[in-house]
């Protein structure tokens, strides 16, 4: 027990399967054409001390495994580490600036328009003196160099997560339409050890960050999870919080402490991040006519739920709940039919739900 929430202890695998049709809709919004691929580049910088080196490696490993678990093929997952000998099988090469730039360049060749490219940095950074930088073995790369390297990926969706201390200075140089930039701190001056990376890794791994239980963790969900857990950590420890993460995805270069998600309009960060998911979506082999119809009904109910939720403030609590209940029951019954129609791509894993409640 401690400050961190155990991950995945009560999440059954069924939500993923059940919500496939809905997830497909989201996926389509997020990733453009069906069949678009995800790519991941994870980098650990200079630890400075053994304990940091090991910690960054553990976080990186967690993200790598989460990606593989989510369906990315091994050739689309690259890990550059400070000390490759820590895990020679998984760490492709040393995380020097040259290697890092070479991998980004390789990604431009390997990926296609519409693909999603995740780049995640764990380590130390600096930014209070000179340009913002991420500390690598050998010569550091500064934010502008990352921006230049990513330029050829402008027709891909890029999720760039710099989980290092003093990373806030990366927001403005890297901000661009179609790109999600997440930093552990809001400025280059927040140079204390950052805990954000550990929580980002936890969010992406095992569903801990999957707030809406659709079986996938979006970049926004991961951000919100990590943000909340960092806050919880400092509150619980009674310490002054020294890191405030930012998310930027509307291209204005400002970043938000509290991005709005799907509700966001173009002026507010969070919309794109809520649609970008780590991992591959298995495509249903063949939807029957009946299940296609059920999926459409389901989508319609979800839209009505969204509309109702928007009216929540203006409705009496009891009235709201009555109407919500009606829709939720309807949705649950459709989902039950979907279950029974056998259109799922996966099989029920038979795991127990919370408190030993057997899944349906």
């Amino acid at each position, binding site marked *: 027990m401690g400050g961190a*929430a155990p991950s995945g202890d009560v999440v059954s695998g*069924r939500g993923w399967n059940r919500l496939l049709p809905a997830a497909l809709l989201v996926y389509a919004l997020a990733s453009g054409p069906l069949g678009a691929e995800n790519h991941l580049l994870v980098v650990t910088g200079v630890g400075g001390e053994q304990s940091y080196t090991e910690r960054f490696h553990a976080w990186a490993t967690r993200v790598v495994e989460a990606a593989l678990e989510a369906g990315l093929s091994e050739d689309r997952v690259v890990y550059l580490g400070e000390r490759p000998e820590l895990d020679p099988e998984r760490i492709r090469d040393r995380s020097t600036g040259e290697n890092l730039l070479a991998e980004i360049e390789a990604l431009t060749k390997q990926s296609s328009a519409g693909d999603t490219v995740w780049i995640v940095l764990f380590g130390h950074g600096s930014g209070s003196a000179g340009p913002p930088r991420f500390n690598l073995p050998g010569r550091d790369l500064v934010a502008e160099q990352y921006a230049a390297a990513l330029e050829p990926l402008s027709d891909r969706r890029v999720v760039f997560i710099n989980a290092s201390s003093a990373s806030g200075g990366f927001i403005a140089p890297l901000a661009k339409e179609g790109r999600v930039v997440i930093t552990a701190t809001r400025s280059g001056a927040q140079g204390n050890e950052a805990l954000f990376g550990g929580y980002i890794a936890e969010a992406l791994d095992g569903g801990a960050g999957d707030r809406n239980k659709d079986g996938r963790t979006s970049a926004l969900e991961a951000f919100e999870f990590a943000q909340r857990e960092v806050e919880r950590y400092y509150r619980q420890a009674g310490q002054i919080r020294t890191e405030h993460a930012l998310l930027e995805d509307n291209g204005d270069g400002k970043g938000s402490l509290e991005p709005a998600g799907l509700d966001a309009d173009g002026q507010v960060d969070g919309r794109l991040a809520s649609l970008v998911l780590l991992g591959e979506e298995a495509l249903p082999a063949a939807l029957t006519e009946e299940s296609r119809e059920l999926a459409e009904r389901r989508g319609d109910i979800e839209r009505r739920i969204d509309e109702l939720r928007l009216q929540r403030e203006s409705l009496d609590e009891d009235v709201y709940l009555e109407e919500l209940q009606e829709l939720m*029951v309807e949705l649950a019954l459709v989902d039950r039919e979907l279950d029974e129609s056998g259109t799922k791509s996966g099989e029920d894993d038979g795991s127990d739900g919370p408190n030993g*409640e057997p899944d349906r």
Partner: protein
Amino acid sequence: MSERRHSAGLRRVESRRPRRADAQKQASFIQVLALVLAAGVWSPLTAAAQDEEVSLQDIEQWILTGRYGDALEQLEIQSADDAGALRLRVEALTSTGRYEEAARAFEGVDATGLGLGVLRGRVALLAGDREQAGRWFEEARAARGRDALVASFELARLAWDRGDIEEAARGFYGMIDAYNTGAADTAAELLAVAEACRLLGRDDPELFKDALRAYDEAVALAPSWPLPRVRVGELFLEKYDSGQARSSLADVLRANPRHPEALLAMARTMRFDGDPRAQATLDAAFDVNPNLTPARVFQAWLHLGAERWEEARDEAGKALDVDPGSLTARTLLAAAAFLDGRDEDFARLRDGVLADNPRYADLFNDLADASADNRLYAQARDFAAEAVRIDPKSWRGYGLLGMNQLRLGDIEAGRANLETSFAGDPYNVWTKNTLDLLDTFGEYRMVESEHFEFHIHDREADLLAPYMVELAEEAWAALSERYRFEPPTPIRVEVYPSHADFSVRTVGLAGLGALGVCFGPVLALDSPSARQVGHFNWGGTLWHEIAHTFTLLATDSKIPRWLTEGLSVLEERRARPGWGDDVQVGFLTALRDGELLGIAEINDGFVRPKFPNQIALAYLQASLISEWIEENYGFDAVLSMLAGYRDGKSTEDVFDEAMSLSLEEFDERFFGHLRARFGSAMAALGDAPSESGEEDQDEGEGGPSRAPTRNPFERREPNLEQLALAAMENPDDFRIQMTYGYALFREERFAEAEEPLVRGRDLFPEYVGSGNAYTLLAEIYRQQEREEEAIEALMTLAASNETAWDEHLALAELLGAAGREEEEAEILERSLYISPHDLGVHRRLAERAFASERFALAVRERAALVALDPPDRAVALYELALAQHRAGRPESARRTVLRALEVAPGYDPAQELLLDLVGKGS
């Protein structure tokens, strides 16, 4: 007074005043030359005097650095009889309290003609002869000499002191006019202008700024003259800005560490800050001037705060011996009479003061302060109301009225009076801070239970309220039965997530070390989020404060501080294992060295501790006294004591009636008991130094913080060989055994560490502080897979240490792994009183409760998880709904599961539960 004057304040006449930048350069010149002609109170030296072997300037320098005796001796030798020498002689005599000699020094001298009329009047004032002082001032004014302007101020001040505020104000505004026309241009005159502005601040608070400006100009003109800086310090303290006060006074004391008025003002500031050096500083003032009347009065107030009425009266008597008309000393006597229950004496003294000054609101303000210091908040409120009745411009009175109304739970009336006070005096930091705090009250949610009304910040009310309500009602049931008394309800409990806010609520300023406070029917305490985990047990604190409510209200707040604190700690100890103060090394060394206070003095340990840790010792000692009385004479003896105090009896009578013991007999028996109980542990401490000078601890109402302190057994680079030898040669020395054991433990030489740690544990088994043997042994046993022994060690620790967070969790984990689930749940429950913020603890408790079908408990724990805003909110809501469903609360379950589905509409377990709840389950 005219409106123009009222609003004008000071206007600088630039041509008559040196610029500040030049002031330092000009000062010596001004003192030696320009002020030669001024001959005010701070008159310069004559040219002739400079020819002496020891010049008057040398003597003046001696006075400025506190060498009053040397100065007087030299002046005797020189027999100088000019104005400069006479002034210095009188300065030295008055600084050392020799007022009669100072008065005699003027005999046969034309003081007015020498420009020393004001000084002569002030000497008469110091000796309490106001009429004569008035005559000297009048003479000086009529003579139109250089001290005529200051004489006008002094006459106005006399009018002020007898309550003729209008006449006084005319004189004070005259000083402002003098400033504005450039007529006030000596340091003495500027000081008088500053004082006038300060006293007129009640009409126009902007004049406080002008006062500071005039003080500054006086300082600039005569940088070595200490008095303006002393007055600046006093003004800042009056506005509760002790930092600025200290700074100004420290400047004075650096130059003259024996300046009696600066020492007094510094002692007041230290007292305000809770600095234990206050008494020593005051004593230093007495060493120089034993007849400093305000210092005697202040000393008397300190005695009064310690509930030592007799000493307070004696001290006030000394002040009145010097100045029989002193309003402040007579006010003190009135307060002592009031607190001592001598109603007739009180009425006589009060009426006497009012006869001399019918508008002396500070009589009632001081009575209000004294009442609040003695926890008589209703009486404090009533006195403050009387203060504003006789002087509607007593902003201090409105502040005290509002503050005490807040303490009694009358929030709106309190706020209104504080607003009035603030409008009249916007520089009062206490008032401002409190109003700022009141502005945040809208963020608090009220939660009512049968006997309590909780006010908890909205963001943590969902989490805290269930636990607080449960614990408070449990305390109510236990204490009302035990004390056979039920306080009026509801009891208001304010819970602050910011310690600074709690501190402001309590003392008007940030920085209070206390954890909780009880005003009788109103409690305030830190919420668990206000402190670091492991530094605080909010459950124990709440119980402690509720116990105060019982003992205060059962005795009409007449219970002495030591007993209400002692009983509160004792009640904590009875409520849960581990709650209440523990025996620390410092307590035993204090017992060994005779530093613990006898029953007649124990209040001093709370109110004016002589060393930083004394207050913590006093809490523990008071609790052990309470415990001992109950063990030996039964709880009825305690109830008898409470009744005795309520009836106004003295401690001597109370002890005699309850136990047939004199205070001396009690001390003898109690200390005998302590020595028997802790004899072997004391012996095991060897010659460990006393902790009387060690680091500060949090203090105040609600008990000292039990925050972990530095591990006393840790050595930076321990020499293991030397330690091993020392341990072998001193097998019965607790500290040596623990130091050696800890050094081995740090080296992870666990097998070797066990023996000295076990020995240390057995030598002083009550020691559960930092670096205790139990924690270390438990870790060793865990490493060696000796889980049962680890459990036993941690059980022992948890039974005595209420804040050991990590150890509680480790123990719960071990118990869970050993299948001792009920004990695990109990330890986890207790850990919630250290911190309710840990998701894992709630989750584990919920699982245990669910598995054992205690669904109400499961609901509480699942609700706590939701309140903590867990990452898996949908799951947390679903699990709460499920627990509610099982607990037979289908409507709650329905609402909660809908909230889960709001977050995650497709979350299938929640869908299933909803369908079940609406009768459509599969």
